[in-house]
């Protein structure tokens, strides 16, 4: 369904839900109207506050509602390039599926997450039991 490039982060022991929430928060810096969707069950969260990350392994972050709509209606198209971040956590690894990691704002999102996971969050930080 989604092509593009994979950007892989070693989470260094960070809790999976914390990592996915970090993706959402960092993306929201660039996309203030971002829409969060549980990629496994299709649940659309009304806001970050209302989101439930505890059991998530995959999440879509759309630039806004319009982007979500076009992705659901058309899939990838020329009109919705770089308007989605698809994040997957498996086995202590976070994978971002992006169309072009070098394009704005993807490069900024990738850079911020890279800094956070490598230096900014506690290495071997807490994780849910």
């Amino acid at each position, binding site marked *: 369904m989604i092509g593009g490039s994979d950007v892989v982060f070693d989470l260094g022991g960070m809790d999976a839900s*914390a990592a996915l929430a970090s993706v959402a928060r960092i993306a929201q*810096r660039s996309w203030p109207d971002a829409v969060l969707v549980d990629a496994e069950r299709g649940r659309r969260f009304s806001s970050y*506050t209302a989101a439930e990350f505890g059991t998530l392994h995959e999440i879509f972050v759309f630039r806004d509602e319009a982007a979500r709509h076009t992705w659901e209606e058309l899939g990838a198209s020329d009109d919705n390039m770089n308007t989605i971040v698809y994040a997957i956590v498996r086995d202590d690894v976070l994978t971002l599926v992006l169309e072009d990691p070098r394009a704005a704002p993807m490069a900024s999102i990738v850079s911020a997450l890279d800094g956070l996971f490598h230096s900014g969050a506690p290495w*071997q*930080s*807490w994780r849910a039991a």
Partner: protein
Amino acid sequence: MNSSENQWPRLLEMFHEAGVGHILSRHRDHVVNQLTALARVYAEKLSDAPQGVLPRSLTLDGLVDEHRRNPYRVAPVLQALAFNCSAEMLAMMWMVQQGAVVHTIDYKFERGTRSTLEVSIILPDRTTMRSFCSREHWDLAVLRLVGISKADDQPVIESFYALHIPPAEGYAKLQIDPWILRVLEWVQEYGSGSFFCASLIDSRHIDDVANATVAAVQRGWLKPSAPRELQAVSKDPDAASVAIAVLSGDAAMVVALTPTGRRALRRTRFYRILAQASAHSLRMVRSELERVLDVPDLAAHTPDEIDEFADQLLAVKALLEDAP
């Protein structure tokens, strides 16, 4: 902090999961007071905020529910509480964990004179700001939990991240089953004013005291490597009795009495229910309670039924306390 039901056992699990269970075991009143203050400060700060920007209140039920939905949001706040952070900063952290963003952090320190932390945040509506200020030096610990990053070479602080805190020496990772939680509830409910602490410690710190009398138990159960504060309890001449019970392979419940002197010793029958099994297993504790309560299989009963048995236990305790 309001709760529709007794959330104490769940709270205990949450603190242990965050690696700071000891704070609840040792300083329960402090934790309760801080959670209450957190709820108060949180509500005050949001009293005139736009409707719907964040929940207006924080209850114990809400805390527990959020832990179920997003445990990563709750753990840093519990750790900050354990690090002695003020309710002002705990409220700030809670709002950030819910989606507010850190706008400014200003910390000033002068040796021996001043330690001031000021934080301003922007609520999820992206316009409403709230400021938090503290002169409590312990609040500096908030900065341990900050997630640091940069975006486009600009500084970013988006959230708080809990530290990985291994179980402290003497505190086992808990495998709490419902039956044990029920016992803890009894201690909580019926032990008010009588118990110095109810804690769970690693059974490695406990000497075997099979068939010991309570008098022997109170002096014989701690190894030199046991947590310092528990040793202090055992050496306290006013501590009339300390009873323990091994509740699983790894953990033990410790019950220490604050009442002093002979009167406390007269209570020992109740505590011996736990203490007699101290060297062995949960099974022995359970069977002893089953014998006292005349209930064949306590573990097979529902919580409501066990509550009824707890009432009986209370009656037993009262009877023992009144004994000459």
